[in-house]
């Protein structure tokens, strides 16, 4: 039984020329207790896909146009703003990329956490302090009690991200959306935080939507991966299968672009990503794809394939056997 099931999710931005599509997700599913890696380039819509679950977008001009987002059997897309307040933070926790900007600089770091405990778990006063200390200890922050009254600028980037994780899991959410949680941090800190996230997931049976552009992280961290391009999932399946035997040309080129030791020139994917809104018909990747044929530019491929490893490519068998 899937905990999260997103179908036909359509996110648009309102411009002077009318709404433009940013994300048009055919389907994305996340099982209970599973960690799914959502991989894509900047601008592929992976962050917006994560944010669409709680419908908090960076600007008011970006909005959810349609589709269904079922969390534990309930369609969040049909909920009003007021009902969503009870979902945010309580059923879905979110961790951002940049921990330096995500804590309010005028408050000690413990304050928003205790605030959250009051809001979602009705803990106040000493009970809230005790629980905040426990959460800080759980995310392995040193000297948790003293840290509660420190200001964000007194903490390191890694510590701040741990605070953000503590806040995201404070209400015991069923789903954690982790949007490139380690990208802004040192490599050494990255590994620790990733292990912590994985521990927390196991411990609480929480599902994690892990958004990243780093295939190396994905290879080590997640069992299942979904590759995004131009606002839609182009390939999904068990991590090993997708990375070892990519069925979509985009995944293949992405893997070839990962820097390797002893490699001469770095490889890049020719051309630039075309926004979803500018593709009238056919496959979104056709303009950059070395496998593209006329039919690719005419027919929009659906996610298909043998078993759980599926790709949205008409020529996936050929891609696989090149």
């Amino acid at each position, binding site marked *: 039984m899937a905990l999260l099931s997103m179908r036909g999710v359509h996110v648009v931005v309102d411009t002077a020329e009318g709404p433009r599509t940013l994300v048009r997700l055919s389907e994305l599913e996340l099982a209970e207790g599973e960690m799914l890696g959502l991989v894509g380039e900047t601008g592929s819509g992976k962050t917006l896909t994560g944010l669409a679950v709680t419908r908090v977008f960076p600007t008011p001009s970006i909005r959810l146009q349609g589709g269904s987002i079922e969390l534990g059997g309930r369609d969040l897309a049909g909920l009003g703003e007021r009902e969503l307040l009870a979902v945010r*933070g*309580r059923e879905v926790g979110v961790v951002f990329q940049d921990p330096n900007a995500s804590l309010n600089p005028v408050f000690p770091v413990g304050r928003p956490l205790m605030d959250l405990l009051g809001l979602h778990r009705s803990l106040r006063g000493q009970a809230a302090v005790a629980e905040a200390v426990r959460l800080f200890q759980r995310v392995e922050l040193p000297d948790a009690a003293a840290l509660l009254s420190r200001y964000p600028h007194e903490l390191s980037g890694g510590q701040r991200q741990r605070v953000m994780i503590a806040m995201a899991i404070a209400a015991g959410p069923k789903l954690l959306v982790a949007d490139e949680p380690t990208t802004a941090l040192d490599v050494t800190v990255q590994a620790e935080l990733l292990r912590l996230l994985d521990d927390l997931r196991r411990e609480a049976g929480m599902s994690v939507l892990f958004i990243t552009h780093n295939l190396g992280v994905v290879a080590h961290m997640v069992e299942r991966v979904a590759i995004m391009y131009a606002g839609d999932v182009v390939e999904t399946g068990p991590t090993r299968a997708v990375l070892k035997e990519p069925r979509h040309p985009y995944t293949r080129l992405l893997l070839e672009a990962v820097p390797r030791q002893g490699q001469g020139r770095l490889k890049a994917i020719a051309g630039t990503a075309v926004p979803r809104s500018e593709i009238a018909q056919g496959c979104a990747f056709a303009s950059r794809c070395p496998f593209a044929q006329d039919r690719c530019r005419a027919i929009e491929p659906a996610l298909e394939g043998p078993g759980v490893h599926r790709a949205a490519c008409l020529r996936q068998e050929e891609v696989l056997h090149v």
Partner: protein
Amino acid sequence: MGRTLRFYVRRNLMTSIGLCVLAVFVLTAILAPWIAPYPGDAAGLVHPAHQLLPPSWQHPMGTDELGRDLFSLVLLGSRVSLGGGFVTIVFALLIGVTLGLIAGYAGGWLDEAIMRFTDIVLGFPSLLLAVAIAATLGPSLDHAVLAMALSWWPWYTRLIRSQVLSLRNADFVQAARLSGRSPARILVRHILPNAVTPVVVQASMDLGSVILTLAGLSFLGLGAQPPTPEWGLIIANGQNYVLTNWWYVTFPGLAILLAVSALNLVGDGLNDVLNRRERGVL
């Protein structure tokens, strides 16, 4: 922050002087009924035998044409003038900050509507509004305060709105939204504390101008009415005696000058401290 503030004030002479003078004014305003030698004079007592006496030990600032002690009037008048200015600024802040927060955060048509209304009020001469209110509701200090507050708030709306616009999409605001906070609470708890600094500085500097304008309105007969001991009103009464009895307008005038100057010095100092802190210099 308390320690850095003290440190800065010690280094900055002008701010310290302003603060001291202001402290004296605030103290005398609070204690006026007890330290004024003739508190009854402000309540309407007249002493025809003592009219227009020059400054002496009995009457440090002399007396007026009704024999009232000017020192007592100026002391008690500081309550009216400082208090009136303070209340005006508080009302203007309440209106201005609220509208600015809403305009900046809501955006869209609501923002447009609030800001165009703000422009209209800004374009409306405040003196005309004061005259209109005095004409319809009758002249009094309360109505002058009302008129001032109603014409002063747009500056705060604009300031707050611009701050909110730059904070609205900050990650920590997004984080607060993602943790299930209502918009009202996000505005008050997360955006306001980060947006309030320039408004506090502006308000502290405005206080001087507002006190001056209120005194001006009273001088014109649109503000405080006799026998209220208001500085502008005392000067208005004394204008016939400028050439013959110099002390009558000089001392209330000096009180206005000192109070407004002190407020400006403090406002400047506050600006330095808070902006330096923002730039990370201190």
